[in-house]
Every structure is written in structure tokens, then in C-alpha cells.
């Protein structure tokens, strides 16, 4: 579903992503980890077609994001860390707008809207203007909108921020269920236990470079130690920092 080949992205003189190659098959739940400024959000923005690689190529569902962007984006849903909603629309109107934007047949859209309203427990406030929503309500509405058009790829940047424990639990169950149904999930998070619990594979990015990528077993093998994801993450990123240090002197 995701095919990133030799992608480098420069912000002026700064290298945000360096020679990144990554393949994520359909139905996989992939977690993307890394410290602040590692290049995770830049990679996500390139997957969504918001930014383009300086070199290399990104394709989603077989469509090149640059050359066939409209088709690629039709397969993708992106839930950013700061959710956007039109303040002067109700939650239901926003869901309808999203369904229409993705050209869903009206009957299917109607049924799906009711389904996501129930799934994310939006019924109490879905007919209020979104300007009255709390952060958690906004996050749930954005998630509902992201799923209403039945995407093939769901990209979520820090999806659990602002959600209460019950909603987090439900979200984790939902993500696993979606992956089981063939939806590819690309998750960027700092919450390591969520990545360890949910992900099929985990990618660790630091200073724009992919330091490690694989299952927990693969990562343990790479780090040459046992332990949880936090231990492995710390060891892999620290080793990379030590390797990089002489080069910057």
C-alpha cells in the first residue's frame, strides 16, 4: 500500500528525511517512532501529498503521490495531531461534507455516517456546531470523518492525544479491527506502549534516517538485547547518536 523509495526531503539546508526507503503492505499496522524533529511528520505529509520529496518517490495504492495525487489522496485519510473542523458546521454536516468530498454514493454515505456516529459515540453532540466541541470531542469527530469514506490507508499522528482512557481503549481495538479488515494503518506516536501493543512492525526514525524497522523480534535482534520497546528505542537512538557524533565535529 505504501511504497517510499529513496526519499530525501530538504528544508532549505536542513535534511528532514534522508534516503528513506519503506514498504508497508495492505492490512499492516505500522508504527513510526522517533524523537521530536526526527522527520516523522514530514514523512506523513509526503504520504498525504501535502509535501513532495526533494528526491525519490512516494506512492500510495500504486498511485504516485506527485503525478497522480488526486487518486492517491482518495485512498488516504489523515488524522493530524491538531484536528481541523469547520467551526460553523455541525459534526454531522462535516461528516456529510467529507463523504461528499470522497464521492460516496448518497445512500452508502448516509449509512456510513450513522455507523461512525455510533462507533465514536457522537450522537450527543453531532448536531451541535463544532465550535462548541472540547478537544476530545473534536478528536473523535475527526476520526469519524477519517473513517466515513472507508479509506484504504489511515494515517494518524499522535491519535490518542486528548482522548480519555475509555476512548483510547476503544480506539486501539478499532485500529486492530481495521487492520484485520485490510486497511493499512500508519501510526506516528511517542507513546511506546501503544506501538508495542498494536503494531505489526515498528520503524524508528532519527535525524531523518530510518535506524531500524521490523517486528519487536527484529528490533531486539538489531539491538542485540531483550527488553521492551522503550529499552530498544533508547539503545538504537543512542547508538545512532554516538555514530553520528564524530561526523559533526
Amino acid at each position, binding site marked *: 500500500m505504501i511504497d517510499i523509495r529513496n526519499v530525501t*526531503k*530538504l*528544508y*532549505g*539546508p*536542513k535534511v528532514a528525511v534522508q534516503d528513506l526507503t519503506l514498504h508497508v503492505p495492505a492490512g499492516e499496522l505500522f508504527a513510526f517512532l522517533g524523537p521530536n524533529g526526527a522527520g516523522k511528520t514530514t514523512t506523513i*505529509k509526503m504520504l*498525504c*501529498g*501535502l*509535501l*513532495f520529496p*526533494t528526491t525519490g518517490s512516494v*506512492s500510495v*495504492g*500504486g*498511485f504516485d503521490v506527485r503525478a497522480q*495525487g*488526486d*487518486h492517491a*489522496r*482518495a*485512498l*488516504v485519510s*489523515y488524522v*493530524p495531531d*491538531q484536528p*481541523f473542523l*469547520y*467551526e*460553523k*458546521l*455541525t459534526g454531522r*454536516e462535516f461528516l456529510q*461534507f*467529507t463523504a*461528499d*468530498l*470522497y*464521492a*460516496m454514493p448518497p445512500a452508502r454515505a448516509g449509512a456510513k455516517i450513522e455507523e461512525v456516529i455510533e462507533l465514536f459515540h457522537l450522537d450527543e453532540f453531532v448536531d451541535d*456546531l463544532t*465550535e462548541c466541541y472540547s478537544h476530545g470531542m473534536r478528536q473523535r469527530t475527526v476520526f469519524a470523518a477519517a473513517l466515513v469514506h472507508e479509506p484504504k490507508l489511515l494515517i494518524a499522528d499522535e491519535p490518542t492525544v486528548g482522548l480519555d482512557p475509555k476512548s483510547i481503549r476503544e480506539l486501539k481495538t478499532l485500529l486492530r479491527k481495521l487492520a484485520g479488515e485490510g486497511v493499512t494503518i500508519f501510526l506516528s506516536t511517542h507513546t511506546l506502549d501503544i506501538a508495542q501493543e498494536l503494531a505489526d512492525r515498528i520503524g524508528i526514525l532519527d535525524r531523518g534516517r530510518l535506524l531500524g524497522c521490523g517486528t519487536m523480534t527484529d528490533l531486539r535482534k538489531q539491538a542485540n538485547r531483550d527488553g521492551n520497546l522503550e529499552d530498544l528505542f533508547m539503545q538504537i537512538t543512542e547508538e545512532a547518536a554516538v555514530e553520528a557524533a564524530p561526523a559533526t565535529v
Partner: protein
Amino acid sequence: MGAERPAVADQGALFRRLRWRMFRNGLRVALQNGRVRLFTMLGTSAFVAAFTFAVSLYLFNELAANKIPFKGAIVEALFDLLFFTLGTMLIFSTGIILYASLFTSPEARFLLCSPARADHIFATKFQAAVAFSSWGFVILGVPIFVGYGLISGVPWYFYALLPLYLLGYVLLPGSVSAAGCLLLVRYMPRNRRQFFLLVGLAVTAGTLFWGYRIAVSFKNSVATNGRELEDLIGQFALLRSGAAPSHWMTRGVMAAARGDLAGALVPLAQVWSNGLLLFLVAAWVAKRVYRTAYDRLSAFGRAKKVYGTSPLDRLMGSLVWYLDRRTRVLVIKDFRTFRRDPTQWVVLALFGGLMLFGASNFRQYYAADLGIMDKHAISLTNLSGTAILLCAGLSRFVFPLISLEGRKFWILGLTPVSRDQILRGKFAFAATGSLLISEGLILVSDALLVVPWQGLLLHAVTVAVIALGLSALNVGLGAYLPNFRETDPSKIVVGFGGTVNMVVGLAFLVAVIGTMVVPFHVAQLAKGATGGAAHVNPWVYAGVPVGLVIGVLAVVLPLRAGAKSLRDMEF
């Protein structure tokens, strides 16, 4: 994989529905929860329109009643200038609003990640930007032409065609501005600082040169009692050529006024066809470059720059020495934000430079025996210009200060600084800057014009009252009518609170200038007209205490209301 192509929505209809729903819901909320605000905004707009209408009616009536020669040509030249000025303003305002909504808004990011087509995103943002930036055009433009129509006894279709002309005309500068904005972002050289410096220098040099030519022609015209008026009008030849859209508008409006329907419809078709064509060009440009421009803007990055303290910060701190240390820190914070954003001070610098340039020119003409009347007229114009600039500058930069603190107000709220101190700090910041700039401009330009000491003193006092009053109005009303939802200061300024603030500020200027300095200058002009025989009555200074009282009220009342509102506010 990926062979199956997704369905495509009718995005034009979709975005129309979106706009309609947002308008309907917004109106419903305004009618339910903010009826007073809505009607005040409508009332304020109606007041501005009525005032413009009354002034236009009076001036057109004077023109007709006094049988001034070439009045048709004068009106035509005035309309040319009006359309050109409004068109230029629309280019800048639409460009700025479009830049913010296409490249920095969360909505743009949301839509760019969706299958929405770039040209549809552009079209929807374009319509919003043009509507936002041209409401002033309608409120100011329509009353002027209705006034002209009533005095000139025009046929009915003059009024019917008027909205069509104005609506068509906004497409032209709006489209040029939109295409320019997109192309600029897409193809801007990597070295932005040098690029903008060069463009700024070129524009300034061009403006100065044109200003100089107009000033020379004006001088000749005045010196020859209008015999060389043609030369002055000739300086605006570019605006009056057949290729200038502003002139199409003038030709059409004037033809409609004369009752020449065919002559009115041809320029109307010219305006609309060119406007729509340019819109299509802009939409095509958007389709081609919007996404890459967005990417390029994000990829510019920022050169690493170390920001430190500056002697200017220390100077600002010492200018507000009378404040306690904590409030001084807040003032320096606001000043630092101001000086690090060139868009905040470059217009002030440009206007100041032009005004001093003009004053120094008139000084030379004065030496060449221009009358004392001109000196008084010019110094009064300078004072009014400075006051209006101050009003616009403070409305743009000081009024939104409290609103912009909005979502991060808790940071200030948790500091050991009271909300009254925050407000006092903002007032001290605005008043100090305004006083320095306006007094500097007025005193230097009056000195260049060799204005008598009574006039100089009067101007200094008046400008001080204006600077303090406007600062308090902007800070006080900014706290009383904040808009915490909006993050774009230009939208805060043109919103409800900003409009009320602007109108109150202008009314304050009219009141202060009208009572404090106009009687003095009118008396001096009368004295000049009678060859110095008329006695200047000391009563010309009677308005000074009235102006001072108005100034005190303008400082005390808004600050008190703003402080109370800020104290009661919950974040």
C-alpha cells in the same frame, strides 16, 4: 495495484454547499447569540456609507452649483483615480488574505490532504478573500456614485448597472493579486530577503519619482493659477489610458450617467470579460502551481539566526521608565515582536519618508514664493494624513494584540502580573511608539514648511492628544471586543470589533482635529486670502480645551471598559 480509479465528486457544487451551510449557520448563531453585535456592525457600515454619501452629495452639488469649468473632466479624473486607488488597495488586501488562507491556514492543510482539486480549493478561498477585502469598496463606492447620480439626474439604469460594475471590477485586481501571490510563492528566489529588498527599493523609487512629478506639476499648476492643470492631469495619463481597467469603469459609469446605454454596456462587458478571463487564468495557475508552491514554501526552511537583545529594546525600556519592572518586561516583549516583523513597520517608514519628502519639496516651492495659504493647507493635510496613518496603523497592529494573546492567555494569566498591568503595558507601548512617530513626523515636516511657532505648538499638542487617545481606544476596545477565535490579525481588524474601533477612531480624529486645529488654519487661510488684513481672533483657540477634554475621555473611558472586561474574562 491501484488500477481502479476512485470516483470523482462534483467539487464545485460541494464547495458551494459548504459555503452556504457555513453562512446559514453563522447567520443563525449571530441572530441567536450576537444580535446586538450583528446590528451594531450593520449600523456602523450604514453610518460609514451614509457619511460618505452625504460628503459626496455635498461635493458634487458644489461642483454643479459653482459652474466650475471642465467639471466633467474633473469628475472623470477623480473617478479614474478612485477606481485606480481602490483597485490597487484590493490587489494588496486580496493578496495578503489569500496568502494566509492558501498557505498558512489549517483548512488549506486539511483540504490539500483530501482529494479536493487545487483549483477548487483556490476558487473557494479566492471568493472568500475577495468578498472579505471588497466590502469596504462597496460601502465606500456605492454612496459616492449614488450621490453623483442624484446630483446629475442620471437615468434609472445607472443605478441598476452600478452593482454589476463594482462586482465585475473586484474580479480584476483580485485575480491579478491571486495569480501574483501563487507565482511569487512558487517561483520566489531562494534568497527571499534580498528579493524583497530589491522589490521594495524599486517600488519606493518608482513611487518617489511619480510623487515628485506630481508635486512639480502641482506646483506649476498652482503657480500659474491652474493654467498648467493639464500637465498635472497628464501625470495620471497611465490611469486614463484605454488599457487601464479603472478607465473602463469610469467610461462606463459616465456613459450610463449621460444616458448612453450602449456606451455603458461595452465597458461593462469589457470589465466582466477581462475579469472572468483573469479569474480563469488565476485558477489555471492555481491548478498548476498551488501544491508545488505549498511544498516550496514549507521547504524553504529558516536560516539559523540567533536572536538577542538589541539596544532598541533597552531604549524602549528606558522610555517607559515610569512603569514597574514587570509591566516594562511586557512592553519590551510587545516591542520585540513588533520590530522583528518588518510588515509591521515598513508601511509607517514608507509613509513617513514620503511625507517628509513632500514637505521638503514644498519648502523649496515656498522659497520660490508659494503663498502662505498653501503652507497652512499643506501642514493641515500633513497633520490629517499622520493622524489617519496612526489610526490605521494602531487599528492594524495594536487593536488585535489582546485577541492574539487569546489562546495562550493562560501564560500571562499565570504570571504574577495583574490584568490591569497587562492592559497598562499595552497602552504604554502603543502610546510611546505613536507619540514618537507622530510628533517626529509633524515637527520635522512643520519645520521644513516653516510653519509659525503658534501653529507648530498647536500641532504638537493636537498630535499628542491624538496619539494618546487612539492608543487608549485601540487597547481598550481591543480588550472590550476581543476575537479569540481568529488567529489572523488582518481578519480581526476587519471583523466586528475592528470595524467599530476604526469608525470610533475616525470619529475621534474628526472631533479632535475639527476642534483643535481647523479653526486656526481656516483663520490663517482667511488672513492669507485677504492679504494679511484680517485679524486672527483668539477664539480660534477656544476649541483646544474641548479637544483636550475629548482626548481625556478617549483615554479614560475605553481603558476603563477594557480593563473591566479583561478582569471579568474567563480563559
